[in-house]
């Protein structure tokens, strides 16, 4: 089919920077509303301009305050900024308190900023399942930079890596001993390290130690993450932090990094989406299909182990994939 349908009016409204339409579209995407799909489809060719920068780190290190400070730097340069602040959803009530907005001070009516709070809605890894799609909508809306602030992360909340081209890991002095930085996870995803609250004692030591660790060897892509000290209380280091982000983005553009990153992210998104649907379908089949139910029963009465049952199901379904 080559018949070109006219763009849905919502797609045109988003490109014309209608804030209410964008806000509603974000809700539709978050809620899995199928009406969003044709609009997203029409907007996709108009995306790819915005750089997505992740701000991650443990809870209480000052991620929201840093986002606010960066917003000040970027707006002063006339850069249009989308912000997504992700906070956790309660597994008990399904409710959440989204508080990232509280740190943001901006001039009322500043059209160059769009801030959206997102609840994680049961998704783990530090972001929501639809954060990537929401970032893309902000891109289509004409934002130059999209800052994504993750849930206060644990050691393995590294999913921001799958949507951002630069990930900033925020730490503070006295967070733990030196062995922490040897561990896998959070420390491995940083393109830029920030020691925030550098007005507190111990910041120099922490920065020196991290620098020594990163100097041991560049990552597989050849980039050595810089370590920047910041204090949002004193307004110090914020420009340097942004320069470090820009340096990483320039590094990506100067070599194969940009194309590789984009391919990896597109692949991850397609795999996520397809496996998600296959998972739902399979779950349904385990309910409806007699043979599959039998296999499930054998696992339950311990006459078959889950590994063998899965191999058989995979073999039976493979030709249908």
């Amino acid at each position: 089919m080559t018949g070109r349908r006219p763009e849905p009016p919502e797609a045109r409204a988003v490109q014309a920077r209608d804030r209410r339409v964008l806000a509603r579209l974000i809700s539709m995407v978050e809620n899995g509303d199928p009406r969003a799909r044709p609009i997203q489809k029409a907007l996709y060719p108009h995306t790819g301009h915005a750089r997505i920068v992740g701000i991650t780190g443990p809870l209480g290190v000052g991620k929201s305050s840093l986002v606010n400070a960066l917003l000040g730097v970027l707006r002063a340069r006339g850069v249009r900024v989308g912000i997504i602040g992700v906070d956790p959803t309660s597994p008990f009530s399904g409710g959440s308190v989204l508080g990232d907005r509280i740190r943001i001070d901006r001039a009322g009516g500043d059209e160059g900023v769009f801030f959206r709070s997102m609840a994680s809605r049961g998704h783990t890894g530090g972001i929501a399942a639809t954060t990537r799609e929401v970032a893309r909508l902000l891109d289509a809306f004409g934002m130059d930079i999209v800052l994504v602030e993750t849930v206060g992360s644990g050691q393995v909340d590294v999913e921001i890596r799958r949507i951002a081209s630069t990930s900033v890991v925020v730490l503070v002095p006295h967070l733990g001993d030196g062995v922490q930085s040897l561990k896998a996870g959070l420390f491995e995803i940083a393109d830029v390290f920030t020691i925030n609250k550098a007005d507190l004692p111990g910041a120099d030591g922490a920065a020196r130690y991290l620098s020594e660790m990163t100097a041991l060897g560049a990552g597989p892509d050849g980039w050595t993450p810089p370590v920047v000290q910041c204090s949002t209380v004193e307004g110090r280091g914020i420009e340097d932090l942004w320069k470090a982000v820009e340096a990483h983005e320039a590094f990506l553009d100067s070599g194969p990094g940009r194309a590789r990153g984009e391919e990896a992210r597109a692949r991850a998104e397609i795999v996520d989406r397809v496996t998600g649907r296959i998972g739902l379908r399979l779950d349904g089949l385990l309910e409806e299909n007699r043979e599959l139910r039998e296999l499930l029963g054998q696992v339950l009465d311990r006459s078959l182990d889950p590994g063998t049952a899965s191999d058989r199901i995979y073999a039976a379904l493979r030709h249908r994939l």
Partner: protein
Amino acid sequence: MPREKKEAPIRVLIAKPGLDGHDRGAKVVARALRDSGMEVIYVGLRQTPEAIVDSAIEEDVDLVGLSILSGAHMVLFPRILKLLKERRAADIPVFAGGIIPDEDARRLRRAGVKAIFGPGARLDEIVTTARSIARRHA
């Protein structure tokens, strides 16, 4: 994890307009709304009417809860309602809590504030009312 089709949670903005440093009531209400399954966007203290309306629009909330103890409600609330109207967002319902004399409360209701709670209001009553006046009924 496959994404399940679930009912969309109600999104509510909780804000304290103007110069008023007492946010315990607002926080308690935010917590109660969270526990009832809502997504509460909490922006807290010293919000200008413009900032509150920006937040309500960008967050696509189903309702706005304003808490005020300063006595400036007859200036700030009508201003917020007017801004919502100007920005084509008058469909977002507004409720209020705080110290608001009966006569003012009557006038504010006439101006469009959907519900007003005084100091003795029960949390379950606030949650039930919030749910019933929210734009989308989840």
